[in-house]
């Protein structure tokens, strides 16, 4: 009738169950901490991820304001007359010109946006709030700027101050006529923002007559005719694109990275769920006797169910709240790692604050509560379905466990096979890759308990004459209590396997990158105009400087590079235009094909090369063509071959410079590779180049071959720093799992131990039994982790990485790593054994024996 009322009436019944938890506070605490940690990891990863995405969106908003469309140009931007025609001939009022660049001042990265304050397409998000009367200054006084207030205060600058900013390798002195204050956005949203009038922007970026793009606010439905008119009016090198698709194209760049991050988070979640399941199972099975007695007294299954599940819910709620709190703290640390990686690899984001948004919290909360309930549901169901008199006997439980384990093993096999089958599907879908990865891992974890059982049996048989009785007791204890130890071992195994798999993947990746650096980076010195990322502001080297460097006596030859991003539709394509001096061998390693003929086609300008990721993402093969929007309109370029490249996950088109010049107006050079004559000192050339650059007033970034390798690897390691953190967290979660399992086991064994003690076993021997037992558990987890980790690593390398980035790499398995994994597993287990051992050895046997 009124179930809630009925439940309320069952105060004593619930007390009987709940008081068990309260009488074992350590275990309750571990349960809660375990669940909380699992949730915390999800929240942290999610929040960090979302903050990075948000940071990206904010910088996109700063860039595009409330624009719905943008007119974009080629590598050298747009001719400014396009804007005038748009206004005066087509009367497109909601349009605004933008010139964008990234600059540096001290340690700060500044996002320069040149605007026309009189154009009214979208001032709101761009300006924040400025002080009175500054627009007149911006327009009429050269080198005046507005600077984001938080950035200014950090730089100890205020209105009226001058400061140096370095743009495209040159320094300019800007005068601050106003500060930009955050309006409806967080202070972080305007971080690093530097606004000038478009005239100043053109002058300090040396982009005279050019715009980065034009913002438009169009109602695509209502203005369909206008959209067509605008399109028709544009010259060949310009294109009208929806702003959203452009942001998407930018966002796409870092998507694979974020997906991988999310996958790491999910891995942590699985370990976390194991833990939740583990602890909830203990909570129930330890009370089997209690539950059995209640059943005998006439408590129905449903009542039992309600009591235990409501209890699980309570635990779940407390743990989830705790987990959310820990997750936010953890996320604070992670977001810095994430944004740093994004800055290193993709584009400049100026936001590093954690954005607290509801979605990750809700998601984690649902996972936490749902997971806890589901985890509690299975053992509760089992307990409730068991007939009461059977419940009073533990052997029944273990008998059931053995049945359960055989079923679990079958399920594991099915999952594993399904995972394998999924891998066979020829697809590039990352999602499928992850699904099969998880199926494989889950499958292998499900098989772990059976393996444990078999191992222990084997051990017993082998050891029955060789081991002393305490050792045999210890080992047998593992399989006898498989209902408790099974999940703990599986969780530890999974965590360690993740460590192995990810380590192998990173090692393999790293060695491939090292390899690639060695073949590709052949020049002795690299120099480039400092460019602060972001696809569209291309720093260029002074042409006179290039000539002077080329004619230095020690130089055998140079390679001149220019990297630009071509936007066409929703696609961003990086094009790397290269020219080698005569006699310089290009260092690109080709994937398949006949190198001499491929190089011939490339150098003749008959065709381009594409990097492996680009070929993978776009399904390109030698002989295909790739279409690029050139300054002469869309043009299909033949593909001569595919080369290995780990420098860009989106991939690149490598184009001979003469071919590039044919199709693009851009004549700038972004970087040089200097090849020295034999016997010439690298340092002396560096000094000479520095002197020449200073003479030309050009800031340059100068790196020797060795430096650039070190730098690349440094970025590489930084990128994976976050995965190390996540792995550690997964191990921590598993550690808590083992600890909980042991606590539960030892509590339950109290009487058994007491009997042992009563029969004359010393506390030291008891400790030995416990330690031995956990050590073996750790060892087993470590051993099973090796094949699982190997499978994991191969899927990561050949499926996930391939599908995410398009990079192929040789797998490199370090035996020490595998050994370290076993040590880690045993170590974690032994560490977890310390407290229970200590506790059990201190318990007076009489006390334990008294409890019926």
């Amino acid at each position, binding site marked *: 009738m009124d179930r809630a009322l009925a439940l309320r*009436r*069952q*105060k*004593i*019944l619930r*007390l*009987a*169950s709940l*008081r*068990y938890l309260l*009488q074992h506070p350590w275990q309750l605490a571990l349960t809660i901490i375990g669940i909380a940690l699992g949730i915390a990891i999800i929240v942290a990863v999610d929040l960090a991820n979302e903050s990075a995405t948000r940071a990206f969106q904010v910088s996109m908003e700063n860039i595009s304001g409330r624009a719905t469309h943008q007119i974009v140009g080629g590598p050298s931007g747009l001719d400014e007359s396009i804007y005038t025609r748009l206004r005066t001939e087509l009367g497109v009022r909601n349009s605004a010109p933008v010139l964008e660049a990234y600059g540096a001042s001290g340690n700060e990265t500044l996002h320069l946006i040149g605007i026309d304050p009189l154009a009214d397409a979208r001032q709101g998000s761009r300006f924040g709030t400025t002080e009175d009367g500054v627009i007149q200054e911006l327009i009429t006084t050269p080198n005046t700027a507005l600077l984001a207030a938080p950035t200014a205060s950090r730089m100890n600058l205020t209105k009226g101050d001058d400061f140096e900013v370095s743009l495209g390798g040159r320094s300019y002195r800007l005068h601050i006529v106003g500060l930009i204050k955050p309006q409806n956005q967080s202070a972080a949203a305007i971080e690093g923002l530097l606004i000038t009038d478009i005239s100043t922007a053109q002058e300090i970026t040396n982009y005279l007559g050019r715009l980065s793009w034009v913002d438009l606010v169009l109602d695509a439905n209502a203005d369909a005719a206008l959209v067509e008119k605008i399109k028709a009016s544009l010259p060949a090198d310009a294109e009208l694109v929806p702003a959203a698709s452009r942001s998407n194209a930018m966002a796409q760049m870092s998507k694979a990275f974020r997906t991988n991050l999310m996958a790491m988070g999910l891995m942590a979640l699985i370990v976390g769920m194991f833990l939740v399941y583990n602890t909830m199972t203990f909570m129930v099975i330890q009370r089997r006797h*209690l539950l059995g*007695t*209640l*059943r*005998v*007294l*006439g*408590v*129905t*299954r*449903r009542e039992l169910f309600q009591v235990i599940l409501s209890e699980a819910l309570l635990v779940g709620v407390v743990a989830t709240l705790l987990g959310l709190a820990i997750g936010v703290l953890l996320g604070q640390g992670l977001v810095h790692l994430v944004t740093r990686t994004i800055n290193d690899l993709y584009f400049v984001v100026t936001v590093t604050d954690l954005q607290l948004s509801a979605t990750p919290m809700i998601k984690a909360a649902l996972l936490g509560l749902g997971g806890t309930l589901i985890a509690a549901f299975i053992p509760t169901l089992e307990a409730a379905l068991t*007939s*009461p*008199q059977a419940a*009073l006997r533990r052997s029944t439980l273990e008998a059931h466990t053995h049945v359960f384990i055989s079923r679990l093993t079958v399920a594991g096999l099915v999952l594993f096979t399904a995972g394998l089958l999924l891998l066979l599907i020829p697809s590039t879908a990352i999602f499928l890759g992850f699904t099969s990865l998880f199926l494989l891992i889950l499958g292998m974890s499900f098989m772990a308990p059976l393996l444990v059982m078999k191992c222990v049996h084997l051990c017993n048989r082998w050891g029955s004459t060789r081991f002393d009785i305490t050792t045999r007791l210890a080992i047998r204890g593992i399989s006898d209590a498989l209902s408790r130890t099974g999940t703990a071992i599986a969780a530890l195994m999974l965590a360690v396997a993740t460590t192995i798999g990810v380590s192998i993947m990173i090692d393999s990746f790293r060695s491939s990158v090292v390899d690639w650096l060695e073949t590709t980076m052949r020049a002795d010195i690299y120099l480039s105009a400092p460019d602060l990322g972001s696809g569209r502001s291309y720093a260029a080297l002074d042409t006179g400087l290039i000539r002077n460097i080329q004619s230095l006596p020690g130089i055998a030859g140079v390679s001149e590079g220019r990297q630009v991003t071509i936007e066409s539709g929703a696609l961003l394509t990086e094009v790397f235009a290269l020219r080698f001096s005569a006699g310089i061998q290009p260092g690109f390693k080709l994937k398949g094909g006949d190198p001499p003929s491929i190089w011939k086609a490339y150098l003749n300008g008959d065709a381009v090369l594409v990097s492996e990721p680009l070929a993978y993402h776009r399904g390109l093969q030698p002989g295909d063509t790739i279409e690029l929007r050139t300054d002469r309109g869309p043009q299909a370029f033949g593909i001569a071959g595919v080369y290995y490249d780990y420098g860009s996950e989106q991939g690149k088109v490598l184009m001979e410079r003469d071919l590039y010049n044919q199709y693009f107006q851009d004549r700038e050079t972004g970087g040089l590779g200097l090849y020295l004559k034999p016997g010439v000192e690298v340092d002396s050339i560096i000094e000479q180049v520095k002197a020449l650059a200073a003479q030309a007033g050009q800031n340059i970034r100068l790196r020797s071959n060795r430096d650039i390798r070190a730098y690349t690897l440094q970025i590489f390691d930084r990128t994976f720093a976050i995965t190390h953190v996540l792995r550690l967290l997964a191990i921590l979660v598993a550690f808590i799992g083992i600890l909980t399992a042991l606590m539960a086991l030892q509590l339950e064994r109290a009487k058994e131990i007491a009997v042992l003690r009563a029969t004359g076993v010393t506390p030291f021997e008891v400790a030995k039994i416990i330690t031995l037992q956990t050590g073996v558990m750790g060892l087993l987890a470590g051993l099973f982790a090796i094949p699982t980790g190997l499978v994991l690593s191969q899927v990561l390398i050949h499926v996930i990485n391939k599908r995410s980035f398009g990079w192929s790499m040789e797998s490199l398995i370090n035996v020490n790593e595998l050994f370290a994994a076993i040590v880690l597993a045993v170590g974690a287990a032994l560490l977890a054994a310390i407290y229970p051992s200590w506790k059990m050895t201190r318990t007076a046997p009489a006390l334990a024996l*008294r*409890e*019926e």
Partner: protein
Amino acid sequence: MAQSPATNHSPLLSLRGLTHSYREGERVRQVLDHIDLDIGEGEFIAILGRSGSGKSTLFNLISGIDQPQSGEIQMLETRLSALNEHDRTMYRRRNIGFIYQFFNLLPTLTVRENLLLPLELNKLPPDRADELLAAVELTDRADSFPDCLSGGEQQRIAIARALVHDPGLVLADEPTGNLDMQTGQHILEMLDRLVRQSGKTLVLATHSRAVAEKADRVLALADGKFTTNVEAFAW
């Protein structure tokens, strides 16, 4: 083998053709073999049998914890075989009081709470708990947890718990089996007194003839069947 003892009690519980067996590996062990039994209201019946003779199985069947492979159990108007698991639980909750050799008190509840539980389950007022505590002379231990009590005290609480909700039938499975002779004797007297006072029916399983002597009627269980030939019962 039908037992139709001459008694002036009206039948409370009747068992007909009750059969139950366990599988032990390859062997099938017949624990109960077509048992018939009528138990009258207010009767005290002792079932005498060795360990493993099927006493506990019989109790599990009577209380609805387990179901017989064949045969009928009828308590007043209720036929147990017609009930599903839930209804059998409700039947047990209302009509049965259980006393075990190992007490099986709930360790997480205090003595009084242990008595309150059956009352609460049956939605009965809590006053009976203190009444019963007084009856087993343990009012002063009401707020202790069971593990602080001696075996005898625990069993007295178990008796109180079995009677507190006024069940029709009390099943006592070797209630003195875990106690010294003197304490056992004391417990037995208390059980006899309280059950008879309240007019309840008591079925007591024991291996001790001395214990069984208190009963109105003694049945011996061997090889799955009852025999009245208690004297011939080989120990």
